[in-house]
């Protein structure tokens, strides 16, 4: 099995869930549970595809996907933050809306070709034997997603704004008492999460598959939600979780294609099995790190 090709496939397979999970982690850090990741991803997938096809530029597609994901998530934000609707029910509703909306928008784009997102060719670096081709010659979105992981980590850990966001997620009443705008902080986090999910979806329709097919994210949003828990709400945990899940998925397909003697049933369930095992280990350690105000509605009167 060629490690160069394998790592390249893993990176492509992991990037959509990495982006979506990273965005959702920030949302949950601010104390909001948005179960609409799947809906925002599929909307991003169709909008990204449509814009890339119309404009001829895949990067425009990604930008459009981020905007449409954010707009959709703000609808969720308005309902849950201003009208104080139930976050779980609204999030599920968002998924249903996203699936329906994407099917409607996408009907014109079935069977069309997306402009290809070129591989980033870094002079010298990409020519390093093995490592160069394995890690340094992917499309730009792979690096954007990795840079975003580092940026989110630094933002939450070192910046004042990051500290405020975490404070809002841990105890919104105290944060409010200190004069922080709880609802505004949360709306910003929700929009960021929507933009990330939208880009993740666009990565599926523009790079991984690349075409538009109704329902094409096929549950990736739910896996992203699981990865946030798996990562104990930490940026690098999300990175590990997404690459682990993407990696096991790709490796099991490669093992099947290479004709190993390992039973297929075991291979197929391995991504889920490993996720469960890691979750068990994490809960056994007792450190879970869920934000204390996660999923609770906030109103300044309470």
């Amino acid at each position, binding site marked *: 099995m060629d490690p160069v090709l394998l790592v390249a496939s893993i990176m492509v397979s992991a990037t*959509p869930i990495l982006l979506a999970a990273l965005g959702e982690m920030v949302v949950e850090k601010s104390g909001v549970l948005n179960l609409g990741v799947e809906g925002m991803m599929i909307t991003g997938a169709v909008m990204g595809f449509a814009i890339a096809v119309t404009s001829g530029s895949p990067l425009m597609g990604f930008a459009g996907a981020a905007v449409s994901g954010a707009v959709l998530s703000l609808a969720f934000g308005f309902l849950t933050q201003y009208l104080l609707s139930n976050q779980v029910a609204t999030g599920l509703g968002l998924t249903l809306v996203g699936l329906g909306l994407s099917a409607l928008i996408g009907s014109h784009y*079935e069977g069309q070709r997306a402009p*290809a997102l070129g591989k980033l060719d870094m002079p010298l670096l990409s020519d390093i034997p093995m490592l160069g081709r394995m890690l340094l010659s992917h499309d730009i979105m792979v690096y954007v997603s990795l840079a975003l992981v580092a940026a989110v980590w630094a933002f939450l850990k070192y910046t004042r704004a990051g500290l405020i966001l975490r404070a809002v997620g841990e105890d919104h009443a105290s944060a409010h008492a200190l004069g922080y705008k709880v609802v505004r902080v949360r709306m910003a986090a929700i929009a960021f999460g929507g933009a990330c999910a939208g880009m993740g979806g666009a990565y599926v329709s523009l790079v991984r598959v690349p*075409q538009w*097919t109704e329902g094409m994210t096929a549950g990736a949003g739910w896996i992203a939600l699981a990865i946030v828990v798996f990562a104990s709400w930490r940026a690098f945990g999300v990175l590990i979780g997404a690459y682990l899940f993407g990696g096991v998925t790709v490796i099991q397909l*490669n093992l*099947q294609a*290479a004709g190993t003697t390992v039973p297929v049933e075991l291979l197929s369930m391995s991504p889920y099995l490993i996720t469960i095992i890691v979750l068990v280990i994490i809960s056994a350690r007792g450190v879970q790190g869920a934000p204390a105000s996660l999923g609770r509605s906030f109103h300044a009167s309470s």
Partner: protein
Amino acid sequence: MNRRTLLASAAALSLAAGAALAQDVPKIAFVYVGPVNDGGWSQHHHESAMEMKDHFGDRIEIVEQESVPEGADAERVLTQMALSGADLIFTTSFGYMDPTINVAQKFPDVKFEHATGYKTADNVSAYSARFYEGRAITGYLAGAMTETDKIGYIGSFPIPEVIRGINSSYLHAAQANPDVEIAVVWLNTWFDPAKEADATQALLDQGADVVLAHTDSTAPLSVLEKAGAYGFGQAADMAEFKPTPRISSIIDDWAPYYIERVQAVLDGTWESHNVWQGIGDGMVGIGEFTGPIPEDALTHVTRMKEDIASGAYHPFTGPINKQDGSAWLAEGEVADDGTLAGMDFYVEGVSGEIPN
């Protein structure tokens, strides 16, 4: 309102109801496993249903439900359809077999038609297409086109239909190229474009350069196009990928069958049966051959298609051994439909095990 007008209006109402009853046309229902624009399997059932609808016009009413998961959900949807007055229900995926049989028992007056299964009842027919005839042709082309001597096969579920497809593909690929190997990847889904794309990539990474898909979306062809490898349209022509990577296709044409069966309901002559039609009957179509297919391979598959259609050639003609080397078909012997319908073994030359 006095009593007289009340009585009059009641009479008018019952008359109207009577008239409505007289106009009651047979309600034909369809259940699909994927979205009706998946570009493959479900789309072709839907299009055939629409063709049938155009044929009958106002004489029937049609209801459809897409993306119904196989299993308990299917049973709920079918029950709902039967309760809401459907007269004939087409269940168009293998996994609907047991739900169809279960619901059919509860509604003996509703007629059911289940695609690609093998169970029937007084009010349940089974209909299927001999896709393995098409697989013989695409398999031969795969063998003729591969330069790495390795072809890939994306399996959905390990059911007889898919196993027949793998065996038929391999046997005919080996006719074109005796050194050919087939690598099978099982996905346990009919429709998941991202997973189908990943599987195609994995097969390419493992050295395959022609990939046959037994799943429903066009995702494998997108990946093959990027890689410069070859594939085939599955269930639909997938003409948007002409001339390459799609070099031919297996096209399902259900419309003539749907028209025939609905006509039988209208005539009151519907009876349960179990049919299996192939290239000769027109239920399995072979799409145009495109791309750089060598001349001799082209002549061979063109002749093979005619021979299969006329019945002169059966894709499972001996000598064929089972995977473990034991004899299955003797020289010149042709597989019987019973064995084919329940096929649960690989033929000699295919490696790997069939998942349970």
